[in-house]
């Protein structure tokens, strides 16, 4: 014989059953079981009644009519995309992202400068050292210091950027949401 008794959804952490019931998305079998249960459970009865009221009230929150030129504007933007060369399409989202990250602008400049510096150091070392010297022997103390300074500058800027982010309160906390 089939068990038609239901344990209280509110006591078993299954309140979604009541939500589904009010959304009319609960299957017939479980609907019958819940209705039987509700006859003897005031808490579920109350919650279902309140949820049904909210569910029905929310129907009044209608969306706005959509602008007649929505598609026209969209296709105009698509045409623009299609006109842009492929390399620009690749770079655009990165640029757009960086545009919204003010703290990154100086960091990027310094990162670019560091990259150039490191290349210069590498080339200089290559040229100035005899070919027979092992790679470990061509380290120039001044170059290392310069590189360390650059890294320190980068770290300082990173801390500055973090400081700015902290000042902006929960702005970044929303990132967690998505």
């Amino acid at each position: 014989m089939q068990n038609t008794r239901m344990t209280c959804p509110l006591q078993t952490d299954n309140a979604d059953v009541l939500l589904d019931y009010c959304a009319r998305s609960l299957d017939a079998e479980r609907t019958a079981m819940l209705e039987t249960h509700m006859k003897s459970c005031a808490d579920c009865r109350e919650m279902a009644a309140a949820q049904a009221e909210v569910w029905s009230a929310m129907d009044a929150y209608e969306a706005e009519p959509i602008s007649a030129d929505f598609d026209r504007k969209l296709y105009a933007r698509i045409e623009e995309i299609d006109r842009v060369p492929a390399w620009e399409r690749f770079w655009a989202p990165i640029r757009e992202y960086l545009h919204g990250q003010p703290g990154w602008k100086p960091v990027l400049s310094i990162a670019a400068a560091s990259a150039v510096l490191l290349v210069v150091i590498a080339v200089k070392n290559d040229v100035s050292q005899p070919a027979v010297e092992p790679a470990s022997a061509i380290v120039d103390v001044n170059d290392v210091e310069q590189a360390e300074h650059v890294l320190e500058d980068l770290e300082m800027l990173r801390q500055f950027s973090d400081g700015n982010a902290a000042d902006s309160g929960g702005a970044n906390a929303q990132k967690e949401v998505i």
Partner: protein
Amino acid sequence: MMAVATIERDAELMLRVRDGDTESFALLLERHRSPVIHFVYRMVQNQSVAEELAQEVFLRVYRSRANYEPTAKFTTWLFRIASHLALNWIRDRRHERGQESLDADTPDGMARQVSDHRMSKEQALVRESKFEEIRRAIHSLPEKQKAAVLMHKYEEMEYSQIAAVLECSESAVKSLLFRAYESLRARLAHMA
């Protein structure tokens, strides 16, 4: 709930878009334009911003067409883009306004004209006031709860799909919805 045939149709259309068929993009737009705009509108509560963000959603779909693989439901992907954009917009706006409560905003809906002339002035006022109360109640929810409720109530999405859109577990979605509806019950129960 979305039928399997519909899901397959969306994926099929998107695969055609990937192959350069612009007609299929128009069909996808036709099928999903309203749900996306309405969802974003209820998230950001501003129609012109909602349309702007919805355009960005479809632009991103178009831009990503070359790499499209039907590994998940098309609508899951679509609403993931839409919710990311809406949540980012809300976050940026809150940041710009120095954590000022958006609840104080003049709602876009308040400027709506009551176009149904069969409605008496009194009925129209009651309707507007009801609309406003629901708007405020929904707007007062934390963003992730709000997104979950909007997808559950207005898009009739299943828990698993909401979870996929919000990139969390199904039990987390149930918990989000439980807390959200609990708040809404407290604020709106008297309205029925």
